[in-house]
């Protein structure tokens, strides 16, 4: 059986053949009908591909694109709104279930629930008292360390920042109303 390689490779080569390769290929093609058929088939197929024009869409493609863009953006916004609504609803439902469970358990065992509530209240009160104590200690030690001039400067600076923030916010608010 006649070997078809590397001739088949060369026939469909993605690079140009050297003069020696081209001569060998030509000589092989004279003897091998299978490679000759491949060469004819590919030459014809390539000719057809190279002659085929660019196909254009029907008139008004860009206008259809603009309409599609508007429709898709509306759909996207709607989907985002539904997503936010869905997440909020899921959150609310989760909260309702949690609350419902608490209420149900307190209804089923009111004494147990009252003791639990009392424990929480005691814990919160103790935490607030401890925080107050720590805060007072800190303020007293800072007051002793920081000179009075620096205190005055800090208070004035904070007041200036607050005023600036208030002015900015009111300006933006007025601008927003005007727009």
């Amino acid at each position: 059986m006649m070997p078809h390689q590397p001739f088949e490779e060369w026939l469909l080569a993605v690079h140009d053949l050297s003069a020696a390769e081209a001569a060998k290929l030509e000589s092989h093609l004279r003897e091998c009908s299978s490679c000759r058929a491949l060469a004819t088939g590919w030459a014809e197929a390539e000719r057809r591909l190279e002659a085929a024009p660019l196909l254009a869409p029907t008139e008004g493609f860009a206008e259809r694109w603009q309409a599609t863009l508007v429709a898709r953006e509306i759909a996207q916004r709607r989907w985002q709104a539904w997503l936010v609504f869905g997440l909020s609803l899921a959150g609310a439902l989760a909260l309702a279930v949690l609350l419902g469970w608490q209420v149900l358990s307190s209804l089923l065992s009111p004494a147990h629930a009252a003791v639990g509530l009392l424990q929480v209240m005691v814990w919160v009160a103790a935490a607030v008292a401890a925080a107050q104590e720590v805060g007072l200690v800190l303020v007293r030690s800072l007051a002793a360390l920081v000179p009075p001039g620096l205190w005055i400067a800090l208070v004035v600076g904070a007041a200036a920042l607050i005023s600036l923030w208030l002015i900015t916010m009111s300006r933006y608010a007025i601008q927003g109303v005007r727009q």
Partner: protein
Amino acid sequence: MRSVSVPQEWVAQARAGDRQAFTLLVEAYQVPVYNLCRRMLGNPGEAEDAAQETFWRAFQALERYDPQRPFATWLLSIAAHYCIDYLRRQRLVALSLEAMPDYHDVPDPAPGPESSAEAHERERRVASMLQSLDPLDRAAIVMRYWYDLSYEEMSEALSLSVSAVKSRLHRARRQLAGVWPESQASGLARGGTHDAAPAV
């Protein structure tokens, strides 16, 4: 190709959020993008949808576009990937010749019943040749013969290595060389000749 060049400012303006600039890009690239989708999918309706989808995806991904890359290659890459995925989903690789659409929008320099029928027949044969290929091989052939992309550009657009592109092109050529005589025989069986249009 067959190439399109647009002012670089349009791309920059579109990236900055200018919709009008993007519409100009749509107008400029509608033919190359549509042609790729049409050659890949073979059907005008599906090609229109695919081209619209390509521009939508490009519009959404503009921030991720690297201005160092040619815009046309980037767009063609989006279109090719969309069509390949679509074909894989739809399993339309072997499209029946009987189901081939009418090529009513074939550009014809000298319109007339005979030349139009001839162009129709030529397009039908090219389309049937392309439909015989694997989607990725088809994309490589379309990019090579309609857009003259280099192997590097094709490898980037198709997310393949350069050697994979060459090997796919080789395989596609081998297949097309075998398909051509069949397509010719099918044309003859339908009442046509190799170069003449079938009797209308």
